[in-house]
């Protein structure tokens, strides 16, 4: 709205005038256009995947569930057949169908590389053969190890069964051998991937993708009254830098350190804008807000409220009690103790640190209209701390001998980045990995609530002149409208998810609509948004924010509090109040 821009410029971003919305806003404002464009992609995804479930999906799911149920009633531990049935069910995915694989070819990000960046987009037959030759030994060894472990597990299980599963020593031995087989079995798929490399050339697909989304966003821009042609031409440059950002992420060491595409997109963008300058012909395509808002509408579809029950009540307590407390207290600390001048920076860092890193920072920054350099700063802080915490936390947990489930819950709730949580969990053990990744997933769902609450709070309380009373209509005028699309997408997909049931939804929604299309598009839009941020940011703009090291202090204090609180609540929930859940894992 006009009043935001004018009031923002003249009154240090405090909105004092009443705004008005008209029907014209529906096709001239970025917020609304982002909703239409996001929903168009979501509808396309539903139309592609809903009518095309994998062959015999229901039958195979029922078969696996029946086996697990029977095995569970038979033995006091998860048998070999139980695990085989669980794996078989896990393998049913809508994305494994030919049409989904064709779509995926366009969205495939640059591949991993170590020293030659070209390896990320092109691999010859000879290079693939050489990689396969190197991986062959490892694959054969992994297969042999898994086969030997399976035989041992089956023998132990039979011995326990022969004793009617009443001999605790035999039961324990069987459980240990089965766990060893599960671990050995898990290594096969990666070893197989290393021995079955195929040649590829991603360049034509990337060009195709650039054309598709150049036209897609160009049409949106044209409807809003901007030039399609100018946007389309500049878009290729922004897209190219976004691809380079992906290549930054897939470099072997950077991948291990968790330095993802958002960081690289900002770095590459800033490097260009602060040296040779962002070329004039590129500027019409530098559309940070448009890309972010459309991406956030798509992200809304991934916020499935049913996920909060994934690990039962203890998961809800750890993720949904500790996180809001930390978020509010960190924000309060920033305002009352550190006296941070920028409330938007304060809340963006607080959400980034307490909820789930980059994705929470994006959603919160967009909801409170934070400045792009504030979002950049929050993400930079988060990535540096994540790289440290993902090694330090499992090391500390090992040092004190923390149980796997507690360590997983603790790391899952406190490490910022969603992916780094899994890495830290894996560092500790497989059960810790699963618990950490699941607790983080539950916490991820919070970003919908956080973004909505922050948007309302900012409209009703923060973006006001002193003593100004704001009516609910005024709040509506000021409300960032794309948040409606974000929340609506979450509600619609949560309802679909609930109605389908956990197993079918996992196949069609999780491993279909979302992973087969919308999630890939959302990730690309965020990469384009971060590239745009870099391309319009000057290094000097960071100077005022770094004064006194307040963002750093805020982050450290908030993170320390979260570490202590989550450990305490995690112990109480997983080892005192809901111990039966822990025992079942």
């Amino acid at each position, binding site marked *: 709205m006009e009043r935001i821009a004018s009031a923002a410029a003249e009154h240090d971003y405090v909105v004092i005038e009443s705004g008005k919305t008209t029907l014209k806003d529906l096709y001239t404002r970025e917020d609304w256009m982002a909703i239409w464009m996001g929903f168009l992609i979501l509808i396309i995804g539903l139309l592609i995947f809903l009518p095309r479930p994998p062959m015999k999906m229901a039958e195979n799911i029922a078969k696996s569930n029946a086996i697990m149920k029977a095995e*569970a009633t038979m033995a006091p531990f998860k048998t070999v057949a139980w695990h085989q049935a669980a794996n078989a069910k896990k393998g049913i995915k809508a994305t494994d169908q030919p049409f989904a694989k064709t779509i995926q070819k366009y969205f495939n990000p640059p591949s991993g590389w170590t020293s030659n960046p070209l390896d990320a987009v092109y691999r010859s037959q000879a290079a693939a053969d050489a990689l396969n030759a190197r991986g062959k030994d490892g694959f054969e060894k992994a297969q042999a190890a898994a086969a030997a472990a399976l035989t041992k597990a089956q023998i132990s299980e039979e011995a326990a069964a022969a004793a009617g599963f009443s001999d605790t020593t035999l039961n324990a031995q069987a459980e240990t051998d089965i766990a060893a087989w599960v671990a050995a079995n898990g290594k096969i798929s990666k070893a197989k991937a290393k021995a079955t490399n195929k040649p590829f050339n991603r360049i034509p697909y990337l060009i195709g993708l650039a054309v598709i989304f150049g036209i897609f966003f160009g049409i949106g821009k044209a409807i809003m009254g901007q030039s399609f042609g100018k946007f389309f031409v500049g878009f290729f440059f922004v897209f190219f830098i976004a691809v380079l950002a992906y290549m930054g992420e897939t470099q072997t060491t950077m991948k291990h350190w*968790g330095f993802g595409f958002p960081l690289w997109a900002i770095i590459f963008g800033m490097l260009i804008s602060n040296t040779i300058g962002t070329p004039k012909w590129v500027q019409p395509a530098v559309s940070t807000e448009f890309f972010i808002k459309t991406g956030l509408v798509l992200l809304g579809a991934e916020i499935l409220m049913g*996920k909060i029950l994934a690990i039962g009540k203890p998961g809800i307590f750890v993720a949904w009690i500790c996180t809001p407390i930390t978020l509010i207290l960190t924000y309060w600390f920033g305002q009352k103790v550190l006296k941070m001048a920028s409330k938007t920076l304060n809340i963006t860092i607080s959400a980034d640190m307490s909820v789930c890193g980059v994705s929470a920072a994006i959603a919160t920054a967009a909801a409170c209209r934070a400045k792009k350099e504030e979002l950049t700063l929050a993400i930079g802080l988060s990535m540096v701390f994540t790289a440290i915490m993902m090694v330090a936390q499992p090391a500390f947990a090992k040092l004190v001998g923390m149980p796997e489930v507690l360590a997983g819950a603790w790391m899952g709730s406190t490490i910022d980045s969603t992916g780094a949580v899994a890495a830290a969990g894996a560092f500790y053990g497989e059960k810790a990995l699963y618990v950490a990744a699941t607790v983080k997933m539950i916490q991820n769902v919070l970003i919908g609530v956080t973004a909505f609450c922050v948007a309302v709070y900012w409209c009703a309380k923060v973006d006001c002149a002193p003593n100004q009373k704001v009516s609910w209509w005024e709040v509506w005028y000021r409300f960032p409208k794309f948040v409606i699309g974000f929340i609506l997408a979450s509600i619609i997909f949560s309802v679909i998810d609930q109605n389908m049931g956990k197993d079918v939804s996992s196949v069609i929604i999780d491993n279909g609509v979302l992973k087969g299309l919308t999630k890939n598009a959302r990730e690309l839009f965020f990469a384009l948004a971060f590239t745009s941020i870099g391309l319009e940011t000057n290094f000097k703009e960071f100077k005022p924010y770094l004064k006194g090291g307040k963002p750093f202090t805020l982050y450290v204090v908030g993170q320390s509090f979260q570490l202590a609180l989550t450990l305490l609540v995690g112990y109480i929930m997983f080892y005192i109040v809901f111990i039966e859940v822990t025992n079942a894992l």
Partner: protein
Amino acid sequence: MRSNPSPIDPLQVEDSAPRVLVPGARLRAYIRLAIGLGLLALFMAGATLFSARVPALVTMAERIETYDLRPSAIYYTDHKAAAEGEAFIHDSLAYPPRKP
């Protein structure tokens, strides 16, 4: 989010400057870009060397490769570990082994 005005494009500015200065300024800008890219390459190379010498980082790298993880994932749908973890926990709670 609010955007500040874009940084000034040196090339555009130089275009309107006296012609003699343009090539020099343009060259300096590109040299700065090349230096920046060189520093990033150096950082990656240094990080690789550093990672190979710290045992904890070596173990972490091994685990990441073994479980095919993506530490930079920004949402749970961006990596398969979340789906696997959820499936494992769901099945463990839905079909728990009988009590001994």
